[in-house]
């Protein structure tokens, strides 16, 4: 009656994978969340991304590049699976329940405002910003990944920040403070 489990030796490959999941799944989830703006879809997307990553983990040479590599896989998976399922912006308010504990009220207020503004941001502005802030991509890397010119990426990064600052500071002030 007793079924003895198969004990597989823990390979160095498995250890590497475990470490990737433990250290990077949080940021990958955040990236996925802002991409599809839905918690359940985001979790599914991250899981699918890591399963794909596992199947091709031999192609990952340096662990420094792991985050960018995973984000690239995640973006492809998102395009393949979920682009059409992304909820319209109007559905989001109910899902967007956030834990603000540990922040000063001022910070929590700012974060809330920026989050609301992020949800409204067009994807063409949101994605380069996520790649830069969450993924640590350089402008050149973003350009390569999105198939855009470097100048176009810089414009989008500039505008993305302008739009978010406008929410915090009021539009005119935001414009003033960037351009001397």
């Amino acid at each position, binding site marked *: *009656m*007793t*079924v*003895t*489990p*198969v004990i*597989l030796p823990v390979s160095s490959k498995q250890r590497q*994978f*475990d470490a990737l*999941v*433990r250290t990077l*799944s*949080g940021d990958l*989830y*955040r990236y996925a*969340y*802002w991409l599809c703006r839905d*918690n*359940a*879809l985001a*979790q*599914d997307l*991250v*899981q699918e991304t*890591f*399963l794909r990553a*596992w199947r091709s983990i031999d192609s990952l040479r340096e662990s420094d590049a792991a985050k960018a590599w995973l984000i690239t896989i995640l973006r492809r998976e998102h395009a393949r699976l979920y682009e059409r399922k992304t909820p319209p912006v109007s559905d989001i308010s109910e899902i967007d329940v*956030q*834990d603000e504990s540990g*922040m000063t009220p001022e*910070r929590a207020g*700012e*974060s*809330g405002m*920026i*989050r609301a503004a*992020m949800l409204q941001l067009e994807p063409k502005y949101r994605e380069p910003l*996520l790649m*830069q*802030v*969450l993924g640590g991509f*350089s*402008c050149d890397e973003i350009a390569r990944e999105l198939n855009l010119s470097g100048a176009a990426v*810089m414009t989008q*990064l*500039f505008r993305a*920040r*302008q739009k*978010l*600052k406008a929410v*915090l500071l009021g539009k005119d002030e935001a414009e003033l*403070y*960037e*351009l*001397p």
Partner: protein
Amino acid sequence: MNCLEFRRQLAVDPKTRDAVFLQHKQECPRCAEAHARAMSFEASLAEAIAVPVPANLADRILFAQATEQRNQARMNRGRNRGRWMQYAAAAMVLIALGVVGYSRWNRPVLADLAIAHLAGEPLAMTSHAAVPDALVQREFGMRASITMPNVPTGVTYLSDCPLGPYHIVHMAMAQDNDPVTVMYVADHHQAERRDFNQTGWFGREIPLGAGTLVLLGKSAQSFDHLETVWRDAVNGPRLTGL
């Protein structure tokens, strides 16, 4: 670099480590001020982007990968093929139903794992023969270093199984016509006792000894009784009147 070039760079990539950029910041107080404001905004932005990550996300992913690995290994070996095909099929159904693949914020992960595991082991619920106490004692001794002088009566199934990242003693107990699955998770201590009810299953998670006892059934009728007998079996009977 002049001020205009600095401000452009600042608006596009404020965290750049570019040497010329950093040098201008050193030399120009007004741009240094603008840089400080930009850093404060970047801090707010980073905080806003860092939405809370669901608890157990990493465990879920590792569980999914381990399941895939294990299925692969079993298939390759061609052993127990029928059983594992059945398991894989059941797992697919559960994934399609969203039980395993992902779930809502606060659904307890042990519950997901236990329900999914049960689907892969249909024999567990149909066996009626009593399992000898000695076998139960041996499993608890080996898996959880628990000495159990008095084994609860009515154990009809016994197996030691992997459960996601954990290891369990998997049992079934006949309770009238309503068998209850009893899993002792030897290497995971749940902080809180709690009841759950999902996808047609009633369940209870009970911190017990160094591990967690999970009860799972089509009704919760006998849970209180089973909780008492398993607490007594693991901890020794409570002394009344003290």
